[in-house]
Structure formats: structure tokens, C-alpha cells
């Protein structure tokens, strides 16, 4: 089979373009970073009490629905806890079950100003919940959070 010179050139260019595009996609995937949570759209907006109640009812169902979703949670802060060099904010119900938020680096300064008793909205990626055998309560954890209000 004889392939004309122009055809060969075209094939070469096509192969190069595909390789470049593939390389570009890989480069993007490997260097991509999670964006600023404050700019992300929330999949759900709800109260801490409702979120806790839903996990207490069935954490397997709630995990399917909420894990790895961006949620904006509103509630009264029950504790601000030091976590190594950072701080976490916690909202608990009357039984001690709680939702806890770990913050994105750029939003830590705001989190440090929060006090127990403050009414707050926090947005972040829900990591799901589990029953703690240590505490004998349900707990729900969040990562990459930002205070929204």
C-alpha cells in the first residue's frame, strides 16, 4: 500500500495532536488541586441537627446520599477544638452526636475567631458518618471547610 507524502504528513500531525491532548489531560489530572470551597456550589443546605438526625436514622443511607458532597451546614457551635496545629469546629445535638468541620488552609484564620455559642454556616466536603464505639455516639466529619456566614 502506498501512502502519499501529504497523507503521511497528515497522519503524523494527527498522531502528534492526539498525543499532545492526552498529555494535556494527564498533566491536568496530576496537577489539579481542590478549589476554594467558598467558590464551590453546595449540593445541600441544611441544619446540623437535621444532618445528625438523618445519620442517626441510617448512616448507610445517609453516607450514600451525602459522602463526598458539598454541604452547607447551619447550627450553633458547641466547641472549637485544637487539632494539632489547626482548629476544628463542632456542632453537637443534645445526646452528644456531632458534626465536625476541618478547614481549608486559607479559611483557618476565620475558624480560629469562632467561639462556642456562635451561630454559623459552614460549607465543606462531607466525609460521611459512622457510629463511634469509643464515644457511643454518631459522628459526621467534614474536610476542606470554609465559613460562609
Amino acid at each position: 500500500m502506498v501512502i502519499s507524502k501529504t497523507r503521511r504528513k497528515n497522519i503524523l500531525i494527527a498522531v502528534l495532536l492526539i498525543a499532545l491532548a492526552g498529555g494535556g489531560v494527564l498533566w491536568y489530572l496530576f496537577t489539579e488541586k481542590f478549589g476554594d470551597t467558598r467558590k464551590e456550589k453546595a449540593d445541600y443546605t441544611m441544619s446540623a441537627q437535621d444532618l445528625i438526625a438523618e445519620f442517626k436514622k441510617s448512616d448507610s443511607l445517609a453516607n450514600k446520599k451525602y459522602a463526598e458532597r458539598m454541604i452547607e451546614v447551619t447550627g450553633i457551635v458547641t466547641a472549637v477544638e485544637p487539632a494539632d496545629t489547626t482548629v476544628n469546629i463542632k456542632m453537637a445535638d443534645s445526646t452528644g452526636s456531632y458534626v465536625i468541620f476541618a478547614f481549608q488552609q486559607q479559611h483557618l484564620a476565620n475558624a480560629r475567631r469562632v467561639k462556642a455559642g456562635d451561630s454559623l454556616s459552614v460549607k465543606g466536603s462531607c466525609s460521611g458518618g459512622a457510629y463511634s464505639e469509643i464515644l457511643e455516639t454518631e459522628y459526621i466529619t467534614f474536610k476542606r471547610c470554609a465559613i460562609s456566614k
Partner: protein
Amino acid sequence: MKKTTLIFALLISGASVFAQKRTTTSGTISFDATTSLDALPRAENKTVVAALDPKTGGIAFEAIIKSFSFVNPMMQGHFNSVNWLDSDKFPTATFKGKITNLAAVNFSKDGTYPAEVSGDLTIHGVTKTISTKGTIVVTGKMISATAAFVVKVDDYGITGKAIEAGKVNKEPKVSVAVSFN
């Protein structure tokens, strides 16, 4: 009879005060599985539940796998996927153990104490006994503990193409830091 009951009740409540288990909901566990081929597999979990019983030396941890926060979204996806940690099926990792040199740690006196810890580590549904060294710092009422150890991913049935290709360290270093206030 009543008096005995009262004394008994006092004894129980007294004992529970002194033997009180200390807990935190903001323990930190981080791991570093980076290699010269890939700097992405490292993450941190800041919302680990931990308990320490100064009287018995009992130590326990509970970590939600999806709480491990990565910089890179693709790597976080791999980590949680069916091939690696399979976090939908095995949502938590736990440790239950004891300080084995409890006599060397004085929880009622300020100081820095070397601690030896041994217990059962469960990851990916697989339980293995591990031993590690750590440090306990007592400052007034506050007890802080740190430890670093290596987890062999083969032991816990964690495999995958990227791991076999040497992009992920098969013996990542795990660091733990907890404070009981």
C-alpha cells in the same frame, strides 16, 4: 443496708472519676506514601476520634477513611476506590491497643515520656497486630501523644496498578498526633 448501698454508690462514682477515660474528637493522622515517581499520595485526617485510659494504658482510635484530605482530587479518588481502601465497603480504620510500658509514664507529673504501644490495627477490613514507639507529654491536665510507624499495604490487602508500578510507597509512614485537654 442503706448505708452499704450509699458507700457502694460512692465507691463506684469515685472510681469512675479517677479512672476516667480521656477522649478527643480532633486527633490527627497523616500518611506519606510518596515516591520519587509520584509526590501526590499523601493526606491528612484531622477529625480522628481517640481515647486514652491513663489507669489501664488503653488506647483506641477511630478514623473515617473519607476524612483523609488530599491536595489532588484524582489521588483522593484512587485512595477511596474499590482497588485501594474501598471506603464505601470499609468506611473506617480503627486501632485498639495498650501502652505496654505504662509504669514508665507518670500521668500525674509534668514531663515527656517515651511510650511503647501495641495493639490491633484494622484497615480495609483486615486486622493486624502492630507495635510502635511514641512520645507522651504531660502538661498539667493536658496529655499529648505522638507516634510514627510504617504500615505495610500488602498486609492489609491494598493493591493496585499504581502501587505495583512503584508510584505509591508500599510502606507508607503514618504519623499520629492527639491531645487530650
